[in-house]
């Protein structure tokens, strides 16, 4: 069986588990909708126009929601010892990492779409630029985010600091990604030409490819039981 097929099987298994149990997904959805509501409620739109902050708030909401959820992808298997069995199968560690990243990515896309809708609605930002341009920015951004969060999510499972360790490890690494992503999205909201955005998207792709590659190479060091 090829590496790609193993990756797909792991991802499908995780997504099946996720949609059957539903707890993590529901809490992530509730989180992004409530965050959008609270930002819309708390922001004095007379002083700060929603258009000026919607891109940053969307990226931050996606960052917080996906980081909070990412570590959980190992939880179900960890609790009943199933992850050890996954490691005993002939599936390579690389395929396990890539499969879990793909599963996390699918959930991250869902919460990104929801955050985008919630924040543009609650902040009253009607003209939200080209949707294709927004998607072209969020695609590499969410890949980098999911790969990084999946990698360190595995590490935080073994820490007695639990979920509080994951943000400490991931936020410093993800800060450039959020900066590039939020700046690029803000430029789309301002309807700037693609030429002024493309360099940031290239940086997001570089981050995405780098984080997937580093994660795939080093993942066996965080899974050797």
């Amino acid at each position, binding site marked *: 069986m090829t590496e790609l097929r193993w990756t797909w099987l792991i991802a499908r298994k995780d997504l099946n588990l996720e949609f059957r149990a539903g707890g993590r997904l529901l809490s992530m959805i509730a989180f992004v909708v409530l965050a959008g509501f609270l930002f819309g409620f708390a922001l004095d739109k007379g002083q700060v126009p929603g258009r000026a902050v919607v891109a940053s708030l969307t990226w931050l909401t996606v960052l917080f929601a996906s980081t909070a959820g990412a570590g959980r992808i190992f939880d179900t298997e960890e609790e009943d010892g199933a992850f050890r069995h996954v490691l005993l199968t002939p599936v390579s560690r690389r395929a396990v990492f890539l499969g879990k990243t793909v599963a996390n990515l699918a959930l991250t896309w869902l919460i990104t779409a929801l955050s985008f809708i919630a924040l543009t609605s609650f902040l009253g930002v009607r003209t939200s630029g080209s949707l294709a341009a927004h998607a072209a920015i969020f695609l590499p951004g969410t890949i980098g985010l999911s790969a990084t969060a999946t990698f360190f999510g595995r*590490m935080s499972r*073994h*820490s*007695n*600091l639990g979920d509080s*360790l994951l943000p*400490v*490890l991931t*936020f*410093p*690494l993800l*800060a*450039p990604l959020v*900066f590039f992503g939020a700046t690029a999205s803000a430029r789309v909201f301002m309807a700037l030409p693609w030429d002024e955005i493309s360099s940031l998207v290239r940086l997001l792709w570089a981050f995405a490819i*780098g984080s997937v590659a*580093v994660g795939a190479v*080093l993942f066996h*060091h*965080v899974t*050797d039981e």
Partner: protein
Amino acid sequence: MESTRVRTAGLLLVWAGVAAILLMHWMVVFWVPTEAAQGVVQRIFYVHVPGAWTTFLAFGIVALASAAYLWLEDERADAAAVAAAEGGLIFGAIMLISGPLWGRVAWGTYWTWEPRLTLTLLLWFTYLGYFLVRGSVADPRRGKRFAAVVAIVGSLNIPLIHVSVSWFRSLHPGPVVIKPEGPTLHPDMLTTLLVSLAGFTMVFLGLFAFRYSIELAARRQARAEDAALAGGLA
């Protein structure tokens, strides 16, 4: 015996480094010319730049030693990584404190969210995470491995920090010493900077050697106690 030699060499390096730093302070106060545009405050440069150099040297050593540990599982590599990481955090704090003091006068603000400053602060936090990972994992061997992975991933930030001044619009000054056309610094300023760089590097390497030998001795002691306990139980 070997660790005593390393400790003695470390102490000698620290004293030589302290002497060089004292000389640098004399040069800064009495000898080096005052920079025309910024005035006296530019003299923070002789602490800030060596602090930055030493930080990146330390974190580079952490990354290399961590890679060696993952590859060879040699305790000496992990001990070297811990010793260098502690030095990196200390010299990083010197850099992160001296920079804003200089920036307050030069830019009118202690902190600005420009790329080099931000990435450097994030690098410092990543290596703070290095110690959190080590300390929070119950199995020490696993903790060392996780910390080594954090160190390697964190070190990928170092080249980005180096090129950030030329890649992005940045308030931070560009290089004045390592340039294709040669240093553009006044010769006396360059001499003072080199004395300071030598002093900081020697202090760091001395503390690194000293801390490394203590770390190795502590691990030997812990192993001996474990063996004695196991022998007693048997």
